[in-house]
């Protein structure tokens, strides 16, 4: 059925993949402030319609805010110089019987990879109390990134999800890597 093809994308395969992973929302593009606001509104409505208990709803919403704002704050970096494509990231959230699953993907300057990798690794070896201590330490240091976060996002995501952060860096060319981050938020924890 030729009609089901879109470039090299078979839309039925794509639909089935999204369906089997219970994707609630997926987005590829420039994560602007307006786009971010819209996505949060859509997700809030979806979580309300699912009748999700408020404890889980708040956690998912909080983690979503941090993920999407991470993408937003690094928009400039995602626009690869010398390419026509727009600044873009990919974002998906799905849900199964036991957890909400979020994945984000974006270009990152290759020379930032080792720093980001070591920050996530640092968070991943810590337990609940260790994360609390690190959070307070970073909260209380004088560092401010331009928009205010100053390195708390990753720690906060790990604290609220109570799961290790799974990530991957794929070399794209000598200047860029593609960073993907997988976050799982158990419905009971």
């Amino acid at each position, binding site marked *: 059925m030729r009609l089901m093809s879109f470039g090299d994308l078979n839309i039925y395969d794509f639909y089935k993949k999204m369906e089997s992973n219970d994707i609630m929302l997926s987005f590829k593009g420039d994560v602007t402030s307006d786009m971010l*606001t819209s996505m*949060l509104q859509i997700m809030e409505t979806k979580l309300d319609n699912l009748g999700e208990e408020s*404890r889980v709803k708040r956690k998912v919403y*909080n983690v979503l805010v941090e993920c999407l704002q991470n993408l937003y*704050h690094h928009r400039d970096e995602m626009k690869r110089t010398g390419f026509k494509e727009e600044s873009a990231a990919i974002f998906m959230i799905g849900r199964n019987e036991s957890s909400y699953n979020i994945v984000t993907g974006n270009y990152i300057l290759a020379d930032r990879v080792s720093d980001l990798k070591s920050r996530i690794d640092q968070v991943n070896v810590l337990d609940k109390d260790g994360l609390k201590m690190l959070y307070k330490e970073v*909260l209380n240091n004088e560092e401010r990134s331009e928009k*205010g*976060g100053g390195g*708390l996002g990753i720690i906060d995501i790990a604290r609220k999800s109570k799961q290790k952060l799974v990530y991957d860096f794929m070399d794209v060319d000598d200047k860029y890597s593609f960073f993907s981050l997988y976050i799982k938020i158990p419905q009971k924890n």
Partner: protein
Amino acid sequence: MGKISIEGTSKTPTVLFDAEAGVMELKGRSIPENSIEFYKPIVESLDDYSKGPKSSTKVEIQLEYFNTSSSKCILDLFKKLEAIHKAGNEVSINWYYEEDDEDMLEAGEDYQAIIKVPFTMIEVEEED
């Protein structure tokens, strides 16, 4: 002296600061992308206030959500309050959290551990 009254939005909190009464309130959501910009006038007013504060200052924080970029700005506010307290004035902070919101309770405890100001955690029933 200054009075601030900002109506809340889906991303920013309702803010009330009445310097004459020595009362500050933050309610709702604080998840703006640029928190520094949002909190700047509030931090500045509190800075002015700290030059001649009331003998008693009461602060109420009742947030549903706040992002990590707001968390540093909220700490900035608390540090100003700490200085007012240290100078010999009465300051109290009430931190509200919904009964099953362990994350908001922990966030309050984090501030409580950093800031040397009488800090009360108050559990409220879930809205909806």
